[in-house]
């Protein structure tokens, strides 16, 4: 049997950070006592009507622009009918056949559609077991009910759980940087469901998918998808078939339980919402959405790779978080023409990150005591061989601990590279003298033996000499003596 390939699409619900709900003026909040942000509209009293929140439309258009979607010139709302206590009207106002946005892309993943809808209320199941099936009653809190949501549906372009989790992170950063949502998975302002199937590698057909819910962190997202893929693979390899169902991921034991019995298939009886008129984004709204876009991670990664010559993973490390990106770009700018951005990038992601870790804090580069100008100056000094690599690391450690000017630290600690070749030559000569065995072995062709002599020089110069230069001088002197 051919290898089974994972086919994963994600459905993401993003709560918009508007001040009020989607269709009424109740204030949005998190963590307040139940039912203090309700009104006749969001409690679905008889006779009430929805009125659309303009800011939600603008935020959704920003998301559409960030995801490079096509915006429908005219879209409408539909009613999605289903009974559940968290849905006070017994229908959700959502978009159906004409979503606000479609055909987009983020990174390597295509966006199928992005549409506006309202969030459900919160039900708390009370009972002994704390589980849906064992509970005796539920309490409904309508504070969250009616929060504006953008639902983003991807094409099934993801091929592993890790890829899905890392793409979801990119999406979260993208939406966060638009400033249109808190995108907090624990608080539920970002919710990611997976549509998961497997198929023989190379096949174009899609297998039967399951829907995976309740993965309220990126770690659980990855583990949940991993677990479901394993379950499906085992099933298919044993000759079974995957049943279409919705599964609930339980992070505590990585188990998957069917969420609703599908005895009665869903029939949402969608029809156009007669209480609302159509949505026709104006040129002004579209322009505003486009112009409000900051440079987003995906575009920045692309720019770092193409224009700065950074490797993909380095670019991703620097570009995803806007503060880190700004720090890197400022440092590269300060370092000037003589230093390639690639070198600066390696310092930020390599030496600086290591030094910060060493320091024990969890501050990123941008929050550290190392000013971009200081790092730039340091990198330049190393590059110009004014100080050695190892002196550079020592200076960096000092900068991380107390900040300041690297040139001053170099002076203070006497770390300037020994540039007087006469001085270094005599130290090398002394080192050969002091290590006759090693010198003999090198002459006999064992190049590895040179390490002992180099180590001696390093010790003598306290690291102020360039390793390459030391090697060159030792070899030159040994050759001269032999000749």
């Amino acid at each position, binding site marked *: 049997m051919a290898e089974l390939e994972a086919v994963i699409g994600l459905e993401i619900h993003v709560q918009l950070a508007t001040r009020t709900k989607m269709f009424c003026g109740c204030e949005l909040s998190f963590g307040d006592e139940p039912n203090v942000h309700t009104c006749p509209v969001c409690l679905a009293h008889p006779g009430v009507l929805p009125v659309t929140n303009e800011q939600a439309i603008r935020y959704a258009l920003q998301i559409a622009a960030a995801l490079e979607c096509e915006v429908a010139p005219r879209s409408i709302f539909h009613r999605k009918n289903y009974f559940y206590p968290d849905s006070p009207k017994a229908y959700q106002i959502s978009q159906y056949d004409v979503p606000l946005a479609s055909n987009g892309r983020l990174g390597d993943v295509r966006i199928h559609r992005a549409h506006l809808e309202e969030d459900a209320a919160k039900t708390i199941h009370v009972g002994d077991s704390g589980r849906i099936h064992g509970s005796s009653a539920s*309490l409904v809190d309508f504070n969250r009910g009616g929060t504006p949501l953008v639902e983003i549906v991807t094409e099934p372009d993801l091929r592993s759980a890790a890829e899905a989790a890392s793409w979801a992170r990119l999406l979260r950063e993208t939406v966060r940087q638009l400033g249109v949502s808190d995108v907090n998975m624990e608080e539920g302002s970002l919710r990611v469901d997976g549509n998961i199937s497997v198929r023989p590698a190379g096949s174009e057909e899609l297998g039967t998918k399951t829907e995976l819910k309740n993965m309220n962190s990126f770690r659980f997202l990855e583990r949940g998808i991993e677990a479901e893929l394993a379950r499906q693979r085992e099933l298919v390899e044993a000759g079974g078939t995957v049943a279409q169902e919705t599964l609930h991921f339980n992070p505590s034991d990585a188990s998957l339980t069917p969420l609703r019995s599908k005895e009665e298939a869903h029939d949402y009886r969608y029809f156009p919402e007669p209480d609302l008129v159509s949505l026709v984004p104006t040129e002004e709204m579209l322009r505003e959405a486009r112009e409000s876009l900051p440079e987003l991670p995906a575009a920045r990664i692309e720019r770092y790779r193409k224009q700065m010559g950074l490797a993909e993973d380095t670019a991703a490390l620097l570009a995803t978080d806007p503060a880190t990106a700004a720090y890197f770009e400022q440092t590269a700018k300060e370092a000037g023409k003589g230093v390639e951005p690639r070198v600066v990038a390696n310092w930020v992601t390599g030496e600086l990150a290591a030094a910060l870790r060493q320091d024990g804090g969890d501050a990123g580069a941008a929050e550290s005591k190392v000013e971009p100008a200081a790092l730039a100056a340091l990198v330049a000094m190393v590059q110009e061989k004014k100080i050695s690599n190892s002196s550079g690391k020592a200076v960096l450690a000092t900068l991380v601990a107390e900040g300041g000017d690297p040139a001053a630290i170099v002076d203070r600690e006497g770390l300037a590279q020994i540039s007087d070749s006469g001085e270094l030559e005599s130290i090398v000569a002394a080192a050969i003298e002091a290590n006759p065995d090693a010198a003999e072995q090198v002459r006999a062709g064992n190049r590895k033996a040179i390490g002992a002599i180099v180590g001696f020089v390093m010790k003598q110069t306290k690291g102020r000499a360039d390793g390459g230069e030391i090697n060159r001088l030792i070899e030159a002197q040994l050759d001269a003596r032999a000749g």
Partner: protein
Amino acid sequence: MASGGGAARLDLETAPRIRRVIDREQVLHVARLARLGLTDAEVETMAGELSGILEHVDRIAALDLDDVEPTSHVVELENVLRADVPHESLPKDVALASAPDPVDGAFRVPSPQAE
């Protein structure tokens, strides 16, 4: 255009011939979707009545309207939007005043599936 399945006669001397277009099982399925508990007798009556009504309604099925845009709305408005400005929400006791089973400031309902 042709008037499809015939005119809506108001002459009700001859009651419409009842063709069973909707059966008992369908009635039960629809009642489940609508969360309507129906007695056996109601299911029977409903099947007959709905069939009669649907037979009348089915006259429009014969109309050739393939190229016609549906009208879900006669209002020619678009972009009726509200500024994102909070209004005052209901005092909590008012919000819960009509609740059949208010508990701890919330609306209590039976659990989705009894044991």
